[in-house]
């Protein structure tokens, strides 16, 4: 009989696992979002006759059951561990680990993407702000410091620089590689750390001829622990959490951000995002995260200078460091607003004789994949 039980154990154990998984899932309430993956999880679909006959109900059900499987994050970690340590894969869904950082493979240089980007900014310059002093500052991806030295494929940055330098028309260009290093970025995220880029802010302000360069010693560091960046979620590997640090000085504390889409106002640091259940990214405390059009006014401004910044998410943490030097900074994210309608919402001519300066501030990944810019 004992032998029989041993013989049956495979079947019994596996059926118990499968049945247990089913019961566990039925008894576990569905989750709305996966914080680690930073996405909404599929919910139970409605069984309408049309959906059943078209098969979409079945597809949605399979997707829902997969998304809501119990211990989802633990299973993802098990897969990632097997992927890296057993199969010895160099990356997991494009995320690799090097020098204590998680990075993301970006693929090859997309020359058509760079050309599209150049056409976009040159056209904007010609049509909307021909009189403005205009600058293009390019933020290198973290890969620039991590990928090639650790044997990972990466894009050809030199070609990108030369394409940009030769392709801009009436725009001053510089790339920021000499001001940064890998540790200036979060270990688990794509973005740079605000406390590590004061030199970048200072260098850009000087380059653009700004006055009233901030005295960083007067700024206070405010630390929030428990930040897990987007690469942490995608890699699903156990990595230590980090601190989000935001720097406050008089100007940053008094500055008011007008979110034009919703006509609401916040400070440059939106700490409500930390408790907002809809927010999945702590990096959103900087300027409240992704937004099409924002205007920051500085009541403590010592001049009437204005700046208009075309930016991506890297700008969110940099701009609060630059507000001290301007009375007003307008932020435009072309991923969320069409450039054809900008003239209706943004005053590119400025007030009186104060023509605003314009800064294009983009990281290399956006430039390489610039078709997302409207």
């Amino acid at each position, binding site marked *: 009989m004992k032998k029989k039980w041993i013989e049956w154990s*495979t079947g019994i154990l596996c059926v118990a696992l*499968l049945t247990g998984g089913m019961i566990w899932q039925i008894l576990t309430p569905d989750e709305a979002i996966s914080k680690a993956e930073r996405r909404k999880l599929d919910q139970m679909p409605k069984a309408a006759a049309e959906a059943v006959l*078209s098969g979409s109900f079945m597809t949605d*059900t399979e997707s829902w059951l997969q998304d809501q499987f119990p211990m989802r994050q633990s299973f993802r970690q098990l*897969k990632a561990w*097997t992927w890296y340590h057993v199969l010895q894969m160099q990356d997991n869904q494009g995320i690799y680990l090097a020098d204590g950082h998680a990075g993301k493979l970006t693929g090859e240089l997309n020359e058509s993407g760079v050309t599209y980007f150049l056409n976009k900014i040159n056209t904007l310059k010609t049509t909307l702000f021909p009189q403005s002093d205009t600058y293009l500052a390019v933020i290198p991806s973290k890969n620039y410091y991590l990928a090639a030295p650790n044997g990972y494929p990466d894009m050809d940055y030199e070609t990108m620089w030369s394409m940009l330098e030769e392709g801009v028309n009436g725009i001053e260009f510089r790339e920021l590689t000499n001001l940064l290093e890998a540790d200036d970025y979060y270990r688990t995220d794509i973005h740079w750390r605000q406390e590590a880029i004061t030199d970048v802010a200072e260098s850009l302000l000087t380059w653009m001829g700004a006055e009233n360069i901030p005295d960083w010693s007067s700024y206070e560091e405010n630390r929030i622990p428990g930040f897990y960046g987007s690469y942490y979620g995608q890699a699903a590997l156990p990595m230590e959490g980090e601190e989000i640090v935001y720097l406050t000085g008089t100007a940053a504390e008094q500055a008011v951000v007008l979110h034009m889409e919703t006509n609401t106002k916040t400070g440059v640091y939106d700490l409500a995002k930390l408790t907002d259940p809809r927010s999945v990214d702590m990096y959103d405390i900087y300027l409240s995260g992704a937004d099409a059009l924002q205007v920051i006014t500085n009541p403590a401004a010592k001049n009437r200078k204005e700046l208009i910044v075309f930016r991506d998410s890297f700008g969110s943490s940099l701009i609060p460091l630059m507000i001290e030097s301007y009375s007003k900074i307008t932020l435009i994210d072309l991923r969320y607003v069409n450039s054809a309608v900008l003239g209706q919402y943004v005053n590119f001519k400025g007030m009186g004789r104060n023509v605003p300066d314009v800064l294009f501030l983009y990281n290399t990944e956006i430039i390489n994949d610039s078709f997302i810019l409207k």
Partner: protein
Amino acid sequence: MVFSGITFLYYFLPVVLIVYLAVSMLRGRVGLELRNAVLLLASLFFYFWGEPVYLLLMLGVIGAVYGMGLILDRLIQTESRLRGPFFALSVAVTLIPLIVFKYADFLIRAVNSWFGVQVPLPGLALPVGISFYTFQILSYLIDLNWGRIRVQKRPDRLALYVSLFPQLIAGPIVRYAEVEKELKERETSLTRLSAGMERFVIGLAKKVLIANVLGDFCSVYRGSTEGGMLFAWLYAAAVSLQLYFDFSGYSDMAIGLGTMFGFTFPENFRYPFICRSITEFWRRWHMTLGGWFRDYVYIPMGGNRVSKLRWMGNLLVVWGLTGLWHGADWNFLLWGLYFGVLLTCEKLFWGKLLEKLPSVLRWMITIVLIMVSFLIFDSEGISGIGTNLKALVSGKAVTAESLYYLRSYGVLFAIAAAGATPVPAWCMKKIRSSAIGEQLVILARPVVLAGLLILCTAFLVDGSFNPFLYFRF
């Protein structure tokens, strides 16, 4: 619903197994009828889940075949002269849905191209598994006509044979004669459940942990613009191994499920990549399909007992059809004909010469020919074939990208290459040859298999690449 999905693994399978095992406790005729009823309902639900509307098509085909079988049997019993024509008619009727749903677009496109006309394409979606169940039904009708089996007078049993979910969508092609007895009488036990589960989990691991990951590599290659010869050859190896592990994994899962429910399905793969000739390869690759074409097409056409010219013709017809069975496109036809030509040449020209070569060299030549064949198979139409094959011999030899992916997928390639040979089975046999080893295997088996099941779940939950390669079949 695919076997390698959360819905099947954690909902459909345990529910069906528990209900099936519960009714299996009833002995005698009632027990068998209930078991068949559970399996039939489960199979129809399984098909409905994937193809809600085409379930009616399958039921219609089953109904037609059931009626045609009864009439054919009657004509056989009465030795009617109508038997031959009616048999031909019943085969044609069975083939109509396959031709309409699978080949209509392909044929019309060819006619439009050849004659410069603009006949509109019907654009019908291909019902999943239609090639498999059509061939199974044909085996029933042909064997009935040849007197190898008795007519099935119970429509529910014929419906169960055709729709039996373990082998419905990806094979193996089970002939009616192979399960005729088991439809009436079969053993269900915890011993069979364990044996079947072991085979199922091994198949699942082959599909999820190896084939899907190799598929991931193939996607990387297809998305790359840098390429290079090394990358192209790695891709050829990855495609070949992916197809093997995916298809043989599905066959293992089907055979395992069959075992759990008391059926004995035929083997479909036997280490095809250790072959030293194309003839041997096809004795080891998709054996149920090869056997089907041999018994129902090649031999009835005269096989090799005809003139050399006709023999060659027979081979090309059979292999052309084999290619088209895999998909209605020119690359599949070329893939089949490629093997037809190779087999003809092996039989008529270089077979003897090949035998004189060292085994390793024969194996290498054969493997290269097989990898090339799978590049044809995997191509998008005719133009894709040229691109895939050209990449093997042109461009940079080695690129940084190809070296990176070789480094990244190297362990997986090694595991897959070793797993495609009898080495793991040989090692297991060696371990079990001692008393301690045998005990160790018995004790470790349930733990290892449960571990594999959990690992497969982890890969599936993470939403890894999980393609269903048989949507064209």
